[in-house]
């Protein structure tokens, strides 16, 4: 009986110990398994992000290439034809009778303006021009063109020490600014637009504010859609920057873009 009880004690003792070890072992292995699973998920997420980044990068390259081709076409083909037409009109005006020569001069002026506008357009599209002149000069030029053709009051301020980003970053930031300004012109019905660039040792910050009609702003965690805003957000992500849009109906819109300065390469 004593032996039997002793065996029973041992049985329950080892049985319970085994159970305890099994439970602890299960929890330990579950933690290890889950940790591996989380690591794999994070790697997958990183890969997806990298893939999206590369895809967007390629899209931007294709877009820039298209813009370049269009700009060259405007400059070399359409521009040349218009210049020739202008020259012909000058010759015609010299030999034509008085009432007709006046009309020809008017048409010549119109063609000259078209040539000028096309040059501006080509310049805006040409990435070489943007990367050579730099972001601020390119934006200033763009704003001058807008001022000539609209009643919009524009204020552009730069603070801090402007520095040159890598050509691709410069180009993407420029395209983003173009998109933001075009949105204001097309959709905001604004009277004033304030653009400010702030260069600090760690960041580049741009704030574009208008006094237009505004729109119902999205919650911070919701993806932005429409008005090319999603596109802006993607570009900001490609650069490793952060874009925040604040707006409410009738209260205008403010687009705040922050780019870390160490992230000069794409």
């Amino acid at each position, binding site marked *: 009986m004593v032996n*039997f*009880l*002793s065996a*029973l*004690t041992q049985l*329950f*003792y080892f*049985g*319970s*110990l085994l*159970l*305890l070890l*099994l*439970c*602890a072992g*299960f*929890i330990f292995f*579950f*933690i290890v*398994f*889950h*940790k591996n*699973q*989380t690591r794999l*998920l*994070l790697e997958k*997420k990183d890969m997806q992000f990298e893939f999206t980044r590369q895809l967007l990068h390629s899209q931007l390259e294709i877009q820039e290439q298209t813009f370049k081709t269009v700009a060259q076409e405007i400059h070399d083909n359409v521009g040349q034809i218009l210049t020739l037409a202008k020259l012909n009109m000058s010759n015609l005006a010299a030999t034509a009778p008085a009432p007709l020569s006046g009309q020809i001069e008017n048409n010549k002026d119109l063609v000259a303006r078209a040539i000028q506008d096309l040059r501006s357009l080509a310049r805006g599209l040409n990435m070489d021009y943007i990367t050579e002149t730099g972001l601020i000069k390119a934006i200033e030029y763009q704003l001058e063109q807008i001022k000539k053709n609209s009643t919009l009051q524009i204020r552009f301020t730069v603070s801090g020490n402007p520095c040159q980003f890598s050509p691709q970053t410069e180009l993407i930031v420029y395209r983003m600014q173009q998109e933001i300004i075009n949105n204001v012109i097309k959709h905001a019905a604004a009277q004033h637009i304030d653009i400010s660039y702030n260069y600090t040792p760690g960041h580049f910050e741009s704030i574009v504010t208008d006094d237009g009609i505004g729109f119902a702003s999205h919650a911070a965690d919701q993806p932005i859609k429409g008005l090319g805003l999603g596109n802006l957000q993607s570009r900001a992500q490609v650069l490793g920057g952060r874009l925040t849009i604040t707006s409410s109906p009738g209260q205008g819109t403010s687009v705040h873009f922050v780019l870390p300065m160490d992230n000069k390469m794409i």
Partner: protein
Amino acid sequence: MLLTVLLVVTSANETWITVLGHHKEGTLLYNLFSLIEIVVWGLIFREINKINNNYFLAALVVILLASVAEIVYRKGFHTYTYRLFSLFAIFNCALYFYKLATHKGIIYIGRNAAFWIVAGVVIFQTIFLFYLTALDFSAFRHDKQAVQVFHEIIAVTNICYYCLLLTGLLWSIFYRH
């Protein structure tokens, strides 16, 4: 909040059984605390597993009613229905682990209070279920040495259980946001 209630209930429960454990009224109070514990655990599992169906509620009600019946008609601690509750708890823990293993998103379990709570419950309830089942055997019940060994193991299990519950409680405070 629920975890705090549970810790208060269980610590009060343990205190009562230690002080008055061998008295009739002690067992009665222990049983009553145990019923509250079952309800609180039911609510915790409902919260952890995001269960909102009638089967879960029905199972909890059945366990509670059966426990009350056992307390009323049988003297001593409600061992049979507590075993039922242990199985219910282990099942819920298994469900939690299954959901966690098949979850598509990223969850950092180290920071997850629910994980530590469930880990504590698994360890405690498995050993306690084994202990309660062993008590059914008279050979074991009358073997003082075996019971003593088991009490020691239960003590170790209790330490693990409360440590894990406290970890869960602290984690839920630190990583609330």
